[in-house]
């Protein structure tokens, strides 16, 4: 029971062994997604747990159209979204006048190399609404129309949130750079 099909079949028959194998095989891929959509490692673990419970409960519905990995990712992302869904009206509430200004923003190119943990930390520090839309639009390549439909918001809101998220990320990266320079100067 090593290939994907056998594992899936085992999971459909509620085999504990198959379920463990599926977790071992795909959790390293899904855990970073969870981390990107949450603020802390603890929240990410909770999200991963909830996602796998949904995966095992609904695995009969996997119709083998599209990749299994894609199906798993969709469940994790949907689980992440569903956690925040009840607060969306607060996340995405904004002043319409600000939208035009923000949409014009084009982020500058960062100047330094960044580790994965640095970038993860910066994403985790984003407000929930910014983080969700940035992840969906940039990392998962969702179109603004799709994001708007999934989150039940305006396309304009999705764009403006993404723009603000980028601006905030750039600000964080700049701050990080300044700290590094300062640290290097002090060390010399």
């Amino acid at each position, binding site marked *: 029971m090593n290939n994907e099909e056998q594992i899936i079949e085992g999971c459909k028959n509620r085999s504990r062994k198959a379920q463990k194998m599926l977790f071992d095989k795909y959790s*390293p891929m899904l855990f970073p997604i969870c981390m990107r959509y949450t603020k802390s490692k603890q929240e990410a673990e909770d999200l*991963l747990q909830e996602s796998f419970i949904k995966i095992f409960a609904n695995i009969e519905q996997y119709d083998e159209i599209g990749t299994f990995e894609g199906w798993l990712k969709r469940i994790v992302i949907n689980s992440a979204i569903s956690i925040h869904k009840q607060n969306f009206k607060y996340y995405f509430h904004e002043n319409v006048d600000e939208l035009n200004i923000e949409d014009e923003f084009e982020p500058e*190119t960062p100047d*330094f*190399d960044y580790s994965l943990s640095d970038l993860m930390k910066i994403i985790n520090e984003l407000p929930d609404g910014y983080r969700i839309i940035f992840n969906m639009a940039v990392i998962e390549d969702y179109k603004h129309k799709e994001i708007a439909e999934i989150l039940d918001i305006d396309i304009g809101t999705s764009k403006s949130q993404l723009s603000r998220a980028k601006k905030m990320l750039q600000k964080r990266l700049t701050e990080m750079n300044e700290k590094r320079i300062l640290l290097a100067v002090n060390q010399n």
Partner: protein
Amino acid sequence: MNRNSQNIENLFKQAFQNVEIRPEKRVWRSIDKHLWLSNFKFYIEHLFKHEPISSNERVWRKINRKLWLQDYLSFNLSKFNIYYSSAAMLVLMMVLFSSVDNKNFSISEILPFTNEIEKIQKIEIPRFENTKLIVAKQKKSKVQIAEIKLVETIKPITKAFLIAENKIQKTEIVKISIQNNQSKNTIITKSVFYEKFELKKQQNSIKQKTQKWTFDVYTKLLEPYSANDITKQSENFRTEMIGLSIAYNVNNFIIETGVAFGKTQNYNIQNDSMLIVQNIQPQYFRIDSIKNSNNDSLLSTNFSNNNLNWKYDSSDSLKLDTTSIYEVLNSKDLYKTVEIPILFGYQLSQGNLSCAVKGGLISALYFKPTDYVKTYKDNSTEILNRNALVKADFSFTLAFGLEYKLNESFSLLTEPFYRKTLNSIFANESKYVQHYNSYGLKLGVRYTL
């Protein structure tokens, strides 16, 4: 990462592409705990997944039966219910009763036996108008005679015969005479009469078709009737009654009513041997200051703040009448009962044994004695009684009666029964919870008229 060729999007996109981070082992352990229950549910559902429809149908059938019963037991003008059933049964019995006398007796059936005349010459009986059936019975040296006037359209001769037979008890029939205007003293023997009318073979069944009145004297025990004390595991009430009933039986159908008197009592209280007497004032003692040691007597509400607990002991210098005290204590969990049943049923007989199935409504009144004992300075006591109506109670009952005939008039009867109480008699007693299902046994003697 190339810092000059990437904008922020590319920076993050490339950074997170194909990243793998292995979660802590505790995550799987948490998932595993949930999976146990989830998988178990899956297996159970899987077991029954081929019969989801039949399972639902079974549940629905149960629900439907209960709904039907609820509808049947409650009165609704537009729906068939138990009240309509009772009325229909009553009408049916009336119809059957009235139809008994409408049977015409065929003259051709009586003619052949006129050839068997024993003492008198052969005669013919053209009509039954003004014809008498005479049954003569010999009792020691005397002969008793009963006469029944036959009218062609009213009474068949077999029925007339039985009525006449019943008029003379405790003797053997020796002669049967048929008289009319044309010929008097047509007498045949009993054996001839039986033979011609095949009465020997059908005697019992013919008798069952007749109408009769019965009177019962009985005692009955109903247990566990009524209640549990909510503070205890079991606090059963027992109802003991004596009663009289009168029943009218026609063509095996029975309608019965009567009256019964009795008491419904919490018999567990008698096991409480220890009494605590409070607020003892040797010169002036009131039973109101007594309660049971288990605090469940209704008297417990009469406590005073200045309690002087004192275990009652018959050897104590206070000479209290323990019997009276127990009676009073018991009276606090005692209801006196009067009930009136209205039952309908059907009876079958074979030889001396009869069995009957009966069902109907019992209306009961519950009275609560408020008696107490007062002891005066000279140690004399006085018991005062007051019976207050507490509650009217209605029950459905279903009984299976067995009757053993001792002779023509008297029978022994036993009747186990089930009783479904429709309302609680403990409306004012929050400490009791009504039991709506109870079982009992009725024992008695029946006199058949």
